[in-house]
């Protein structure tokens, strides 16, 4: 299955899922922006939302770059949601979790499948990692994890030993208690929606099509109720 690379002697087995894939997040982000603009959307940067008010079925987002008013508002602000959600009566339990990733120089295409902890992008760079660390909003890196991640990649594929790292980074995930997405509409402020998940890249198609239709049409698709944050409410003991 991996004809272009030698697998290390320490690898004793592997599992395969035909649905696994790799999406280049930089290209995806650009594609989403272009699609959004082509449909007539306006993108305003440097507009931090500091308050959301609700009057006559209209929401006003007060931002550092002016106020914006609309009949619907979607909170898709990653960890910013924790501050914004209470303003529209939503409860969105999310927590930070750090992941560290290593990036190598670009080399010829050798990995035709994405593998947990070792992927090659279409541009030729390899990405190794990651970690799952519950240490708040610290997005630094540690030498011990960097070397462990690199060692693991070389155990998988010994030929990678001579490939040079060009950077490593840490970043904070947005995690819900069950790690699955939250798609919800406020009960007290109808028209206010939240969409958040880890794996927003994998779920991009669901976000761009299913979730976007749900928000635009206001009709909850049959299987969508499962994603409400109400699933985390513990029923009162009888």
């Amino acid at each position, binding site marked *: 299955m991996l004809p272009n690379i030698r697998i290390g002697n320490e690898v004793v087995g592997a599992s395969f899922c035909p649905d696994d894939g790799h999406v280049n997040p930089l290209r995806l982000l650009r594609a989403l922006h272009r699609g959004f603009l082509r449909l007539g959307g306006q993108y305003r940067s440097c507009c931090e939302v500091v308050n959301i008010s609700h009057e006559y079925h209209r929401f006003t987002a007060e931002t550092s770059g002016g106020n914006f008013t609309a009949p619907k508002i979607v909170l898709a602000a990653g960890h910013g949601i924790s501050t914004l959600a209470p303003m529209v009566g939503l409860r969105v339990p999310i927590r930070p979790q750090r992941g560290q990733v290593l990036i190598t*120089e*670009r*080399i*010829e295409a*050798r990995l035709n499948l994405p593998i947990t902890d070792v992927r090659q992008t279409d541009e*030729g760079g390899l990405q190794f990692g990651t970690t799952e660390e519950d240490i708040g909003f610290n997005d630094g890196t540690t030498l011990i994890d960097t070397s462990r991640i690199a060692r693991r990649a070389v155990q998988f594929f010994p*030929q*990678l030993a*001579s490939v040079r790292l060009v950077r490593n980074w840490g970043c904070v995930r947005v995690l819900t208690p069950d790690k699955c997405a939250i798609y919800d509409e406020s009960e007290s402020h109808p028209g206010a929606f939240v969409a958040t998940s880890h794996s927003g890249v994998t779920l991009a198609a669901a976000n761009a099509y299913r979730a976007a239709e749900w928000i635009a049409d206001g009709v909850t698709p049959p299987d969508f109720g499962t994603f409400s944050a109400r699933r985390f409410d513990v029923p009162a003991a009888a």
Partner: protein
Amino acid sequence: MFRRLHDAAKIAIEFEGRILQVAPHETVAAALLADGAEHTRTTPVTGAPRAPYCMMGVCFDCLMEIDGIPNRQACMTRVQDGMKVRRQDGVRRLEP
């Protein structure tokens, strides 16, 4: 096109088999530009010729094979006496 500001004592490096006299404080990229090198690599996708661009480590247009190690940033590498420098020709191959 480029001129050195000061004359300094020179050391020797080898660029594509040719001996160049360069100043010891220079980066490989600066030394080659001062020598009038036209291109220092070709791109992996189209094979277009490229030369150092940002001179500060961010654009990766200066990749070269330096002392046998491919894909090194010539603008981030100081020259050393006897250094052997070659163009990075397309994408880096992995050893068999």
